[in-house]
């Protein structure tokens, strides 16, 4: 199963309420995914000379020590905000440089997201527990994706949870299952894409990362995905400026979209969208199979 939700605010004055909207949608999708929950949130883009990364550590972690070491080694200003098991790092340094340093010096940390605006948080457990732990109601932003997971293909861990980062300011959430993920994972590794788990959705994320690296636009990569990804899927893909939705050609996995003057939303089911203000008067439709939909500014 799994539930996916996405919201893009057309009315910027609603930005402070984004976390609350997302929380209500996620909790409504608990029946579809009680194993784990996660979100990708886009807010407060950093200047071009800086980068923003979300890091995850297991157990208690000396984040203060990391900040000091990072500032010293990278000779950069480093700001670090802790949120539950995650921390958002903003550094006045080149993102590849930061990623390299973290990979070499701190392999115990997992880089959840990298870019200028994206933040990814995900954890095992019920959506409502996730919402409480990560204080979702306090989070602002311009747009966000969320996922509630009912695991079918691989283990229930934080690493196996969605969203998966697919590159700078990009991420993917997936409802469905891929059947050719083992072969594809091997191909992606041969192409030098770092696929970390045995999760099928991570392979879809890795596939997009590879295609974008090869020069495809997001739309081109998704169209190519229709040919190369075998299985059932409704994908929502977060970008710096909005989000995209794609269903496989059979379209067994549900998806519904809605739009008002204030927002555009997508979800596995309408009842998540029903939580949003003005949903009763929204224009509502079902995305067609094998068709790429995009929203953004």
């Amino acid at each position: 199963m799994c539930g996916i939700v996405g919201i893009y605010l057309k009315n910027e004055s609603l930005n402070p309420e984004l976390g609350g909207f997302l929380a209500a949608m996620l909790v409504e999708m608990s029946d579809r995914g009680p194993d784990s929950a996660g979100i990708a949130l886009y807010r407060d883009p950093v200047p071009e000379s800086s980068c923003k990364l979300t890091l995850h550590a297991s157990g208690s972690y000396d984040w203060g020590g990391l900040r000091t070491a990072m500032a010293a080694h990278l000779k950069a200003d480093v700001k670090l905000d802790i949120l539950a098991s995650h921390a958002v790092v903003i550094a006045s340094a080149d993102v590849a440089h930061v990623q390299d340093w973290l990979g070499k010096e701190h392999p115990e940390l997992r880089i959840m997201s990298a870019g200028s605006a994206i933040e990814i948080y995900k954890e095992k457990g019920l959506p409502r527990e996730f919402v409480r732990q990560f204080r979702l109601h306090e989070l602002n932003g311009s747009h966000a994706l969320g996922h509630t997971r009912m695991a079918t293909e691989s283990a229930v861990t934080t690493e196996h949870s969605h969203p998966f980062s697919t590159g700078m300011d990009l991420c993917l959430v997936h409802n469905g299952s891929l059947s050719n993920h083992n072969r594809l994972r091997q191909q992606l590794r041969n192409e030098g894409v770092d696929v970390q788990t045995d999760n099928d959705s991570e392979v879809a994320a890795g596939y997009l990362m590879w295609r974008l690296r090869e020069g495809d636009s997001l739309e081109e990569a998704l169209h190519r995905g229709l040919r190369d990804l075998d299985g059932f899927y409704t994908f929502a893909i977060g970008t710096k400026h909005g989000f995209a939705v794609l269903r496989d050609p059979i379209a067994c996995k549900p998806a519904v979209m809605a739009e008002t003057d204030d927002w555009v939303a997508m979800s596995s089911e309408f009842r998540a969208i029903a939580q949003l203000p003005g949903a009763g008067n929204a224009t509502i439709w079902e995305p067609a199979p094998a068709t790429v939909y995009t929203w953004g500014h």
Partner: protein
Amino acid sequence: MTAFDLNSDSVRALNQHLHESPSGKLSVTNPGGRHCIACGINAAVEVSIDGHVGYYCAGMNKNAQITIAGNAGPGVAENIMSGSVRVKGNASQYAGASGQGGTLIIEGDASARCGISMKGVDIVVAGSVGHMSGFMAQKGRLIICGDAGNSLGDSIYEACIYVRGNVGELGADCIEKEMTAEHTENLKDLLASTGIDANAEEFRRYGSARKLYNFNIDHADDY
């Protein structure tokens, strides 16, 4: 009229009421996309639902007249036995799946697999339907006033499909058939009874070539 507000009443309480003491008219407000609203009714009651419903609304309906003033999620009127279900908005996938009798009217569009494995229900869609509609349809009529997606009537048995608009690729063993005066008359009556405004003369008829489900002696050596 009995009223249920699903912001305060549970779907279970609503359905229990409809099963145990059904009578007259009943209104449901704030459905909020919840699942299994007004399922398994076996009485000649009138139920009006004001808003959008989730999965399996009006499933297994017998005798009741159910109106949904909104969109319906997957599996609306699944296995309908008799009575009628009217969706004023759009319906998601497998609307009227395996329905055995009664009428399902969709005033908007229906998505994929509309009328899959239908067994006697009449389904009238004022708009268009998605791919694989009428898949393995055994009996009954599927009327599509708009367009039909690809693989229409794949592996169809003896159900009858009428389409006014364009048809994508036909499914395996589904063919266009002659529209006789009797078919037009028949269709005119059905459209009139469901209040859908469409000219019966403009429809084309599709059904089974009967090559897939009959054993062909010439293929005996293939097994």
